[in-house]
């Protein structure tokens, strides 16, 4: 029997029903035995309570004192509420370090993967690859310290490849129905795995992702390592997959027309819409599989990082002080990054509308006088632009008011109110105040002192901060009142020492906000992946549409331009606010008007796409809510639908055969 025949026999065995049932029973038994062993070992008496499951040092509540006044009682109750909230936060953090939950989760996950592989008919293949990989990599890791990095990298690559093969098999099974669009989609999937073009992208993705953990500096605080990994992992993989999506969606349609293979397909009973749908579906499923593989890797490694000691910890979740406290690094990681926080901006300042309208009118008149003074051409220009001018003056004035509201002169105090924080009051995570200040030229060596005042709380908090950087202030949930409001006073200077800062300062548009945890990192991660997939589905349709009427290079270039425009739409829209369409003398710059019109149209069209910002939200621990996902889904689905109709229309009008000169 030849080697190939042996492999074929093994393949037949792993696909047999008997093997599947037997292997499933075996794997289940192994998992159950391991779980029982762990439970028994865990319940055995231990000498000390050290370790990640050790108890948490709870704060002691203040006892009532004899003869305390009402004011003292209220203050004591306020302090006790703070202590209780603080204990709740610490308990919540420490519970995440439970090894039991982690082990049970991993065991369940492993069991699911093993059963999935067995019933997909690749149980022996996967088992063989894993055992073979372990046989090579474990000795490498244990006995050759200099090759540990390489062994880790190869292990990562191995796991990612196994995941990819398994998921591709699942996708292939899902696309096995004998329907035309699905058959075309399945063919696209097969094409992707066998073409060099796509294989290169997949290799870059897998090796890049596997190598990324090795590039993290182990000496940096854990929260930064996790953030860096999430940033590069999620952002980098999305970038690579989006490039692949664009290139492959264009290639699969354009090359088929170039090589005339499409003749064979379109002379079968395939409607034009079925062809376009099939191509798009295939690329979208491929993008989904790759995204699922990489996001699973990212999630698992983020969890691995989470279990590493943070700065100041002797081991994961155990403070180096040994007092059961939570280190700053760990606290920030657990309460600000690996969570899903809802963000609130301060309420805009209340404006006297009458006075506002009056000011607008005054400004309009001043501008009119200036333009009308330039003669009859000025009269005409004013007649054409009066409404537009009023709108712009009104908009500029409102911006000025907002900027003034966010600007603090030397020694000035401003109160900002945040609403809708009701659920934060009972949360087990702190309320985070994030702020950034600008002053003058934002000298990097300048340090400013800010005083934070919370009504109802004695004393004030002074912070010394650098310019043009984000800073965070953790607040106990008890600072939020019963109506879900939080009022924060901020003074430009140190109130305790009565020392003002040298210059005035301002908070930029995104420079002042509070946030609080409303969901888990895991749920947020799932939503982020869903949004990324949605974006890839949109890009796939862009590529397919372009390839229906342009050649491969042209279609790629235009698709990439649309991709870049979509990603940068929010930035572009902001930049357009300062784009000049007329001279100081009021003369229209028609070329600039054209550019502005196109850029504005594109930016508005893709604003929802750009505003989703899934990666940055994940890295910052900000919530990407289901409403955001739904909104993005609706808008992008509409775009996909429009492009689909355009692609089908274009495709129907095309003659797929061309003049060959041979008659």
């Amino acid at each position, binding site marked *: 029997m030849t080697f190939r025949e042996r492999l074929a026999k093994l393949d037949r065995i792993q696909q047999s029903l008997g093997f599947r049932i037997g292997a499933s029973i075996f794997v289940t038994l192994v998992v159950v035995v391991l779980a029982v062993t762990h439970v028994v070992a865990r319940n055995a008496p231990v000498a000390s309570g050290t370790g990640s499951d050790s108890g948490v040092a709870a704060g002691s509540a203040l006892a009532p004192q004899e003869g305390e006044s009402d004011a003292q009682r209220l203050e004591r109750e306020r302090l006790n509420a703070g202590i209780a909230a603080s204990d709740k936060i610490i308990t919540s953090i420490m519970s995440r370090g439970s090894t039991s939950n982690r082990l049970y989760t991993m065991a369940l996950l492993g069991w699911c993967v093993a059963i999935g592989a067995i019933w997909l008919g690749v149980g022996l293949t996967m088992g063989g690859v894993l055992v073979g990989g372990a046989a090579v990599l474990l000795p490498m890791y244990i006995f050759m310290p200099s090759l540990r990095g390489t062994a880790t990298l190869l292990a990562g690559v191995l796991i990612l490849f196994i995941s990819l093969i398994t998921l591709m098999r699942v996708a292939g099974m899902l696309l096995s129905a004998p329907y035309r669009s699905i058959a075309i989609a399945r*063919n696209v999937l097969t*094409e992707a795995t*066998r073409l060099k073009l796509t294989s290169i992208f997949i290799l870059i993705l897998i090796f890049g992702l596997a190598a990324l953990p090795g590039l993290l500096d182990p000496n940096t605080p854990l929260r930064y390592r996790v953030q860096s990994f999430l940033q590069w992992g999620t952002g980098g993989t999305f970038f690579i997959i989006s490039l692949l999506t664009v290139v492959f969606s264009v290639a699969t349609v354009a090359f088929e027309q170039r090589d*005339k293979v499409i003749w064979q397909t379109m002379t*079968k009973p395939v409607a034009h819409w079925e062809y376009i749908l099939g191509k798009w579906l295939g690329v979208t499923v491929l993008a989904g599989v790759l995204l699922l593989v990489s996001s699973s890797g990212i999630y698992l490694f983020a969890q691995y990082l989470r279990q590493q000691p943070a700065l100041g910890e002797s081991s994961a979740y155990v403070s180096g002080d040994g007092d059961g406290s939570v280190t700053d690094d760990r606290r920030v990681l657990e309460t600000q990054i690996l969570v899903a926080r809802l963000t609130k901006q301060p309420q805009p300042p209340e404006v006297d509308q009458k006075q506002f309208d009056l000011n607008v009118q005054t400004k309009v008149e001043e501008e009119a006088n200036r333009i009308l003074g330039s003669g009859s051409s000025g009269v005409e220009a004013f007649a054409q632009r009066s409404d537009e001018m009023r709108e712009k003056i009104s908009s500029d004035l409102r911006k000025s008011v907002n900027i003034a509201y966010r600007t603090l002169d030397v020694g000035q105090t401003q109160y900002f109110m945040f609403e809708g924080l009701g659920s934060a009051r009972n949360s087990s995570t702190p309320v985070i105040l994030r702020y950034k200040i600008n002053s003058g030229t934002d000298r990097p060596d300048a340090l400013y002192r800010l005083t934070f005042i919370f009504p109802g709380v004695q004393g004030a908090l002074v912070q010394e901060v650098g310019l043009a950087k984000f800073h965070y202030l953790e607040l106990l949930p008890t600072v939020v009142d019963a109506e879900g409001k939080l009022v924060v006073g901020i003074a430009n200077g140190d109130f305790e020492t009565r020392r003002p800062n040298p210059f005035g300062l301002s908070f930029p548009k995104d420079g002042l906000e509070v946030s609080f945890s409303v969901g888990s990192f895991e749920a947020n991660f799932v939503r982020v992946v869903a949004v990324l997939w949605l974006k890839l589905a949109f890009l796939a349709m862009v590529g397919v549409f372009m390839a229906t009427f342009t050649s491969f290079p042209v279609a790629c270039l235009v698709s990439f331009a649309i991709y870049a425009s979509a990603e940068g739409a929010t930035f572009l829209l902001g930049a357009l606010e300062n784009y000049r369409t007329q001279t100081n003398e009021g003369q229209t710059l028609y070329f600039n008007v054209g550019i502005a019109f196109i850029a504005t149209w594109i930016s508005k069209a893709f604003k929802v796409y750009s505003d989703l910002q899934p990666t940055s939200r994940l890295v910052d621990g900000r919530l990407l809510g289901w409403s955001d996902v739904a909104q993005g889904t609706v808008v992008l689905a509409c775009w996909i639908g429009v492009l689909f109709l355009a692609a089908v229309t274009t495709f129907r009008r095309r*003659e*797929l055969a061309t003049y060959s000169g*041979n*008659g």
Partner: protein
Amino acid sequence: MAYSGTSSGNEPIVVCQAINKVFKDFWMRDRARAVNNLSFEIRPREVFGLLGPNGSGKSTTIKMILGLLRPTTGRISVFGKSPSDVGAKARIGYLPEESYLYGFLNARETLDYYGKLFELDGKTRARRIDELLDMIGLTAAQFRPVREYSKGMQRRIGIAQALINDPDLLILDEPTTGLDPIGTRQVKDLIIDLARRGKTILLSSHLLADVEDCVDRLTILYGGQKRAEGTCDELLVSQSKTSIESETLDDDTVSEIDRVIRSRSGGTKSVLRVSKPRQTLEALFLDIVTRARSEQLSTSGATSGGVTASFLKGADDAAGAALIDKLVAAPTLAQAQAEAAAGGLLGGLPSDDARSPTRATAAGPDSDVIGSLLNSAQPEAAKMGNRSNIAELNDAGVNSTSAPTKSTAVKPAASNDADRSVIDSLLGGGGNSSEGNGRDRS
């Protein structure tokens, strides 16, 4: 849903009415007029040939029939519908002039993909794929990527994909391009076989021999215009000559024949040419390969195959299978010998055909009739051994000394009754009535 059904009635399957095709350049200026005011019809159950040199408009016409191109003016209907109609396409099988296949798929995956496009269920697909692979002789190479195939092997896969839906209308554009003589013979026999089953076939080629062997009716194009149209007999039978074929004759006998002709015609007619027929290269090649295969020499390319897939013979149901078994049980020795002599009618080895259970079912339950038809449908190679001489008689009485190159015996036209009586007397009343183009249709 999978489309099915066969044509009924005598409505034309394909109608082209005054079609023109003008290709334009980027600036919409006329670049080439590929088809010029072309009209023709393809009737149900006929093999229609589209002949012409390169650039005559054959492929363009076919692409318009398939909806890959739109006529600039004129009207085309296929099965009474627009060429782009999905329902019409479901009944068409198309083999393009070159093999445009997905190089990353293997043969089996290729056929499976195209089977899915016809929404055939998994069981039907698997059965048809097995039969087609067997028919085209690629069963052993079915798991190799198509890009690794030779041109001929790719051509075979192209043929198989065109047949996966058991089409009512089969459009073959230069089907024998890239095929070896065996493959060429197989394709011709396949066409004949399918035509016998009532399929309509449009065959385009510039290889005249290919067309002549198969078609009922043909149109000859040049410069996008129709130059001639009619049946093969109408276009090919020479009304001014008579050919006689017999065992080897000595010079005296030939002189005697010449004398009889001269005396009967009053000296106006005579024997123009006397020669011994040459075996064709195709026949020689087929004979050599057949013998090599019988010696079981190995090859990495396509194997013999050649047994028409049973679903193409209408044997897709259980009743058909039972019928096959019944018919297989009684193939006559004469039939087996005739098939062996033909090198396997569908290109298989004699031994393949002799043991094939489906071979005898090709024309349905009337096995005797089928046997006689298949006998008469043998290629010339099978009959050549019995012939030794060809004489051509010219009504004009002009002698020719050039060596004969064509070995086809032409059936005498009905109008030459006087000549026929002369021949009969010379041959002792036993005139050879075999069909010249080697095919018969029930």
